[in-house]
Every structure is written in structure tokens, then in C-alpha cells.
């Protein structure tokens, strides 16, 4: 449930669901996200131009020429969210090559975590993850939670250019760089799979908030010959 609603500037409503990061809170954020998305699609509410779900917040952006903070706040407060909605969340499987030329930060991780590469891979690939949110750059999924033994801080100095497809970890989270971009996550491999497809207008992001994601390892040969 939304604990507190405030304004973020004059064109957005800031819905605060709490300060912790866990699946229960995030699922509530995603329930609101799906519910409001549907009302926008069905033209039951006007003026909302964007929804940004994250771990424990939902930001609702609106067009100030059409509506205002008070109206959107009242609208959100009036919603009764049906928790039993099936959100069509999907299970997604993503291939990753972890050869050293793609897994850029294994030496750092081995030193910081004090476990070897095989153990890191075993723990990483041995779990299904939950997609808390998608964003920062187009299609980038924020996944969790990692096994406690492979949680590590960000790089002290972020890379100016993370290669496209890089699979990274930091703290309890994993993500995928869908475009070449600056970034500070520890890179353990690279995926040849298209995670963001701007030609797919209906569903450009492969991983969406609420989806379950598992990774599997591929060889360099499989990586190089990947064909979608």
C-alpha cells in the first residue's frame, strides 16, 4: 500500500511504499503500476503521461496543461487495488558467456568476496531472480536478490563505457547493460541476447517489472554464433 503521497516538482506525484527493498513492497508498487496503466489505456483518467515504478516508489508524471497534482493525488487515493490481478508476468531465460574477456571484474570480485570464480558462477546461476524495475537506460532490468556471498560494492571508479550486453552485479542486485553506457557495476559476463528491441513496438523490453529471470551459461563459441 502507498504509505505517503507527495509532489515531485509541479508535474509528478511521488508515491512512497516504504524504505525497505523486498519483493512484497515491490509487488505492491507493480500492482499499482499495472492498475493505473490499464486505467490510462481505457481512458478512465486523463493527463497522466508516465509511470515509473521502482523498488519501493511509484512516480506518476502528468501534463500540467491538462491536470494538476491535487487531481492526480485524489485519483490515486481513490483507487482500490485488486491484489488478485494476474499481471501476466513472464519467466525469462538469458544466456551469459563468462569467459574472462566478457567477465571484466572477476579478479576484483575474487579478491573482495574471497571466493573463487567457480563458486561465484555456481551461486549466480543457481537462483531465479525477480525484476524490481526496468530503466535508467532503455530496457535495463534491475534484478534481485543475489546470494549473500556474492554481494559486492560498486566499482570505485565507474567505467566510461560498459560494453553492450554486460551482465553486472552490485549489492543484492544484478542487471544488464542494454546499451553501451557509463556504469559502475561489477561485470561477470556478457549476453548475446537482445534485451531491448526498439523494433518490437508493443513489448520492446524483454524483461519487465515483476518478471522472473534466470540465467544460464554459454560457451564463447555459442556466444559468437548466437542467432535470434
Amino acid at each position: 500500500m502507498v504509505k505517503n503521497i507527495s509532489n515531485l516538482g509541479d508535474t509528478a506525484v511521488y508515491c512512497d511504499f516504504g524504505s525497505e527493498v523486498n519483493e512484497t513492497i515491490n509487488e505492491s508498487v507493480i500492482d499499482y503500476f499495472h492498475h493505473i496503466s490499464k486505467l490510462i489505456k481505457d481512458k478512465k483518467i486523463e493527463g497522466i503521461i508516465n509511470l515509473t515504478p521502482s523498488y519501493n516508489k511509484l512516480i506518476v508524471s502528468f501534463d500540467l496543461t491538462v491536470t494538476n497534482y491535487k487531481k492526480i493525488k485524489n485519483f490515486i487515493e481513490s483507487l482500490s487495488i485488486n491484489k488478485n490481478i494476474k499481471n501476466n508476468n513472464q519467466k525469462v531465460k538469458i544466456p551469459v558467456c563468462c569467459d574472462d574477456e566478457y567477465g571484466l571484474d572477476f579478479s576484483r570480485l575474487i579478491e573482495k568476496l574471497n571466493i573463487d570464480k567457480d563458486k561465484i558462477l555456481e551461486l549466480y546461476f543457481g537462483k531465479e531472480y525477480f525484476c524490481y524495475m526496468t530503466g535508467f537506460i532503455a530496457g535495463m532490468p534491475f534484478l534481485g536478490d543475489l546470494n549473500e556471498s556474492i554481494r559486492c560494492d560498486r566499482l570505485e571508479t565507474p567505467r566510461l563505457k560498459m560494453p553492450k550486453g554486460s551482465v553486472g552485479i552490485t549489492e543484492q542486485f544484478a542487471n544488464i547493460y542494454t546499451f553501451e553506457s557509463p556504469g559502475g557495476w561489477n561485470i561477470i559476463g556478457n549476453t548475446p541476447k537482445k534485451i531491448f528491441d526498439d523494433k518490437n513496438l508493443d513489448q520492446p523490453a524483454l524483461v519487465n517489472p515483476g518478471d522472473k529471470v534466470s540465467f544460464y551459461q554459454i560457451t564463447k563459441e555459442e556466444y559468437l554464433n548466437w542467432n535470434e
Partner: protein
Amino acid sequence: MNKAYFEILRAGVNTTIQDKGRNHLYHIGIAVSGAIDQRNYILSNRLVGNNLDEAVIEFAYQGPLLKLKNGKINLSVTGDVVFKIIRKNSNIENGICYKSYILEDEDQIDLISTKNTAYGYLSISGGFELEKTWNSYSINTKANVGPNNGKKYSLKDKIFIKDYDLQKVKETKMNYREIPDNTIRVIKGTNFDYFSTEALNNFFDKEFSVTKLADRMGIRLSGPMLENIVNTNIKSEGLVRGTIQVPADGNPIIMLSDHGTIGGYPKIGVVVSADLDRVGQLTPGSILNFKEVSLEEAQNIFKAYTEDTDKYLNENN
């Protein structure tokens, strides 16, 4: 007859197609994009008699040099731009912004540079022959979405022009004057109380300058260090245009149209909607100061700003 187009003889620093922007995609990480200065974008369309949501060319600092092929068009330039029109017979006319010009086949327009604005806009009567992606013509170079494969224009690229009946064209002019004002009004951010009293006093009392790290994503400022007394990181959450984030180094960053959709730095404030055009146009080295306003004041300021824009739009009717 062959289709009319602009041939790019010099690309300029950051030349893209922009419009009102692209909505309903924040949740997958795609920002709104759109013209940084929405008012000058709209005015440029009005000057050539277009619908106000037609696509225009946006350029930054050094603009493009364009040669018209296979056509005759009416165009206008807005912003604070030095430009020339080079006629086919080599005659050169110095261009004046907020005025429309007829460009004949093989004439060129040289958008030499912007002066006191970072961005300038070039509109043509009828608009460009482009396809919309997710209901917008805007080029988003971060997600490679939009015309030209989502990339800024390069030398020798062509920008095609829609067929348009030039009989309808009348030359127009607008008496537009931007009143210089370096005060940017902000509403308190959601992490306002993360900052020390001294930091908050500095934020509203001291001057900041725009650094060279300024682009369509955002602008970094330098000024008094804004001390954070709670936590220099927050759990990543959504951002909107105008959000002022303060990373650990204490220097504020203002988010613009191509911003990352989520961020993990505390938000000290949000620029009011009415001042976003002005903020986006600040050039490196500009000095600014922040002034706090309430939500209600921000809404009134926006209404006044919109009415002021309408005044210019109605000038030529």
C-alpha cells in the same frame, strides 16, 4: 519530380530532430526527449504556419550547414542564433531569428552558432518527411530511437521534406524578446532534509555556474559544496525533467529531456515547469541562482508562462 531534401554539408555538434517528446515509456527506461526549449520549438513552427507539434531540427552551439535540393521552402530559426542564407548565385544574407525566409532550390542555410542559448531550432513549412516512433519524431540518441536510427546527423546525411504548397506561404515575423533572468525557481525535493542547514542556505543564497558537462541528458553545476548529512545514496527511483540530484561530491545535476529514467542520488529540488526551457538553454559558464517557490506558486507561474507563449502564438493571427 524528385523529393525535396536537405543535404548536410556540415553536421554541427549535436543536430537532431525533435518535437513535443515521447510519453508512456519511463517504465522501460526511455526518457521523454523532445525539444529542450519547448517554447522556441513551438514558436518556430508557428512562424512557418505549421501545426505546433510538427518535427523541427534542433542544434546545439555550432549548427549544421544545409543545402536545399529539389525544392523551394519557407523556413524560420528560433533561439539566439547567428546564421546566414547563401543563395545559389553566391549572394549572402545575414539571417534574423523569429522571421521566415524563402529558400530556393540549391540555396544553403548556414547555422553558424548559437550565442546566448545552447540550442536553436529550424522549422520548415509543412515539416520533414519522417516516421514517428511511439508517437513522436524525436531522436533519442541514448536509446537509438526515432528518425536516422536514433542517431544525431552526420555529414552527407539527407533530411527529406514533405511536399507542401508554397502558394500558402506568407512571410512572417515575431517580436520575441527573451528577458534575461538567471533566477531558477524550484520546489523542494523529496530528499530536501538530507542536507545540512548550511547546504540549504547555500543552495538558495549562493550562485552556481554551469560546467562544460552539459548536454541533452542534464547539466552539472559547480558552486558551494552541498553537504549531505544523511546518506549520499538513496534506493534508485524515478526521475522527472528538472529534478536536481546531488551526488556525493556535493555538486548539483539538473535532469533534462534525455535523462536516465531512474537515479540513486538524493533530490534537493525540482525546477518548476515554467523555468525548464530557460534552464535547458543555459550555456557553460552561465551563472544562476535558485529560489524556492511553493507548488501553488509554481502552478501559477506555469499558467502565466503558458499565457505569455500564447501571446506570441496569437501575434500573427
